[in-house]
């Protein structure tokens, strides 16, 4: 009680000195201040995210074309989707892409991170080498892989030398898709490796030591110590990579060509959006409907991953 009284009393003013100017009071911020700080970001988001999104939702219910405003057509675009073989091909390929790349992108970067986290001479070189594909342009990467996998490319020349014969990596519908998946995994390894390295730094060394004392081998320690410790990071990686895989465009476009492989059989949903909605005769309304489906599936994917995370936490 006494201390609070003391703290409230001003110190005695020395005699003969003029009264000091009262300390400048800090003005309470206006209620609008946070909004003013956030305004530039909000504006950019509104113009480049919100407006296009709302516009896409509206267009999905119209027959709008590139140069023709279009009319409200209700659910006609969505009904057409159900009967469009190319839409189902795109959906199948996008789902296959998720199934083919996500497990690899969850597991392989973790193993890679375990390899490069050790401080041994020259390890920085390997860390940089594994990260290089991440910073390389996807166009350059795609072209390099096209050259490698061409009928007369390096890979086929090697296969011919060992007597296997030429393999149509870029002419067979399924091999093309698998080749594109391989490029996605190869390019993404370094990025997710960095995320895992950060997570692994937080795993207490004592846990490994205790497991080792109990006689656990390297594989056992990986499964019972490392994996549970980085589980939430694995879920994050699964979420990020599945959304990216579902929206894949560049790898398939570069390797399978603008038509999406032979007879368009490697078309993904995002490629279909691009092909349908662009150009002077683009069907913007129909492409918007496909975009909404991509958006819905992406949200569902995220929810599923979050749900899995929550279930694990229980």
């Amino acid at each position, binding site marked *: 009680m006494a201390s609070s009284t003391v703290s409230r009393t001003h110190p005695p003013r020395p005699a003969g000195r003029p009264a000091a100017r009262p300390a400048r009071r800090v003005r309470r911020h*206006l*209620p*609008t201040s946070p*909004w003013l700080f956030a*305004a530039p970001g909000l*504006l950019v988001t*509104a*113009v480049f995210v919100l*407006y296009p999104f709302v516009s896409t939702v509206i267009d999905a219910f119209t*027959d709008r*074309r*590139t*140069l*023709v405003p279009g009319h409200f057509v209700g659910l006609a675009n969505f009904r057409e989707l159900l009967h469009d073989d190319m839409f189902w091909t795109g959906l199948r390929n996008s789902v296959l892409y998720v199934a083919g790349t996500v497990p690899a992108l969850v597991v392989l970067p973790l193993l890679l991170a375990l390899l490069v986290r050790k401080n041994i001479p020259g390890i920085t070189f390997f860390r940089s080498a594994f990260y290089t594909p991440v910073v390389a342009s996807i166009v350059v990467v795609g072209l390099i892989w096209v050259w490698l996998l*061409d*009928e*007369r490319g390096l890979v086929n020349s090697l296969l011919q030398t060992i007597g296997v014969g030429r393999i*149509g990596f*870029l*002419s067979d519908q399924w091999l*093309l898709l698998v080749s594109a998946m391989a490029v996605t995994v190869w390019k993404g390894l370094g990025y997710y490796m960095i995320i895992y390295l950060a997570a692994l730094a937080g795993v207490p060394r004592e846990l490994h030591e205790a497991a080792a004392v109990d006689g656990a081998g390297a594989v056992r320690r990986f499964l019972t110590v490392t994996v549970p410790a980085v589980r939430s990071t694995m879920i994050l990686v699964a979420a990020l990579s599945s959304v990216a895989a579902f929206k894949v465009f560049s790898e398939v476009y570069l390797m*399978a*060509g*603008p*038509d999406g*492989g*032979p*007879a*368009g059989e490697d078309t993904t949903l995002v490629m279909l959006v691009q*092909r*349908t909605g*662009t*150009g*002077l*005769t*683009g*069907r913007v309304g129909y492409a918007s409907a496909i975009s909404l489906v991509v958006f819905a599936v992406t949200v569902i994917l995220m929810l599923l991953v979050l749900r899995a995370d929550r279930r694990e936490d229980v």
Partner: protein
Amino acid sequence: MPMSRRTLAALALAALVLPLSACGSGGDGGGSGDASGKVEGDITFQTWNLRANYKDYFEDLIADFEKKYPGTHVKWVDQPAEGYADKISADAAAGTLPDVVNVSPDLLAPLAKAGLATDLDKAAAQYEKEYLPGAWDGQRIPGLPGTYAFPWYLNTGPMFYNKELFEKAGLDPDKPPTTYDALFADALQMAKKSKGKVATLGNVPTIEDFGRYGASLMNKDGTAFTFNDAKGVELLTKYKQLYDAKALDPQALTATPESTGKKFLTGAVAMNPGSALDLENFKKQAPSLYKNIGITDQITNTGHVNMYVMGLMVNAGTKHTPAAIAFAHFVTDAENQMAFAKKVAIFPSTAGSLDDPYFTKEDGTDVTRVRVAAAKSLKTAVNYTPVLFSDQMKTALRNEVAKALQGKESPKAALDNAVKACDRLLKQQG
């Protein structure tokens, strides 16, 4: 003074909406299409991938125009070849289309239908007689009265072939095929002799191939496609035989003209269409191929080769219609087209220009041989690309052709499906 919540909300809304207003289409109340006024004002001229090689020509051309018409100023913009249609569609949608635009007939069609191209039959009919009738007609859109662009340069391409590969296959390198039947026979022999290592062709048949083979492409009204007729099915059946025998490159189903061009350079493909420009390319990039290069006419069963037509469209929304029309005419008049033709291997669309000795007399070099032969064939050439054949239709045809070649569908079923898809797209275009 503290801001009220309502004021704040109004400000936020204004901040949100004002920038968006720029996204709407502008340019309303543009040119009336009346070319009778004074030629003056600032106009923008857009070309299609021409700056890199012909910068000096266009700068001189613009300077000449500005000198002829004081008070005019021409801003020249050039767009890369790739994504040109996307650039035009973005500009058209945003109301920022340049005043004079370089277009091909298939790009012109949707722009004219959307009311963005000036009808020259109304605004500049007096110039019609200066051009070849076929070239002027090439700028008309089926189902739409009027002519929507000044004809600019014409082009046709010879067929290049690798004489060495022909010789190795036991074919006469001095007697290349000129009809489809001869081509198919030679291609099968080439594949057999090379054990499938050398394909004669690298691309699947396009709509122009169907035209040159003798298939009917559209009905007379331009309201439906007809390339699934007996001739069309016959062509695709023969291509299927080539594909099975590896006389058509196995990667043809995903190939682009550029990727096939590279295969021709490396000797993986024996024949490839091109233009006189390619000779220089062969000389630089594949000297050994250049020594063995053979040049022949386009393969055709109809006696007519395919002609590519370029045009200059005048934006219907231009604020300076007289200047835009005068400039488009200036660029495409006989004198300036002839000057351009002497810089690059193209052919003027102006009446009488092809009779110039430049296009009729050879000097013994390959370049003039190609030029003279092409100019001769242009006199009877046909633009086999239907004006209304959009990119989406091209994709639909390629996809169905690929299914037929893979054996997933019969040639007849594939072409029926392609025609059905193209007709649906045509209907949707309105």
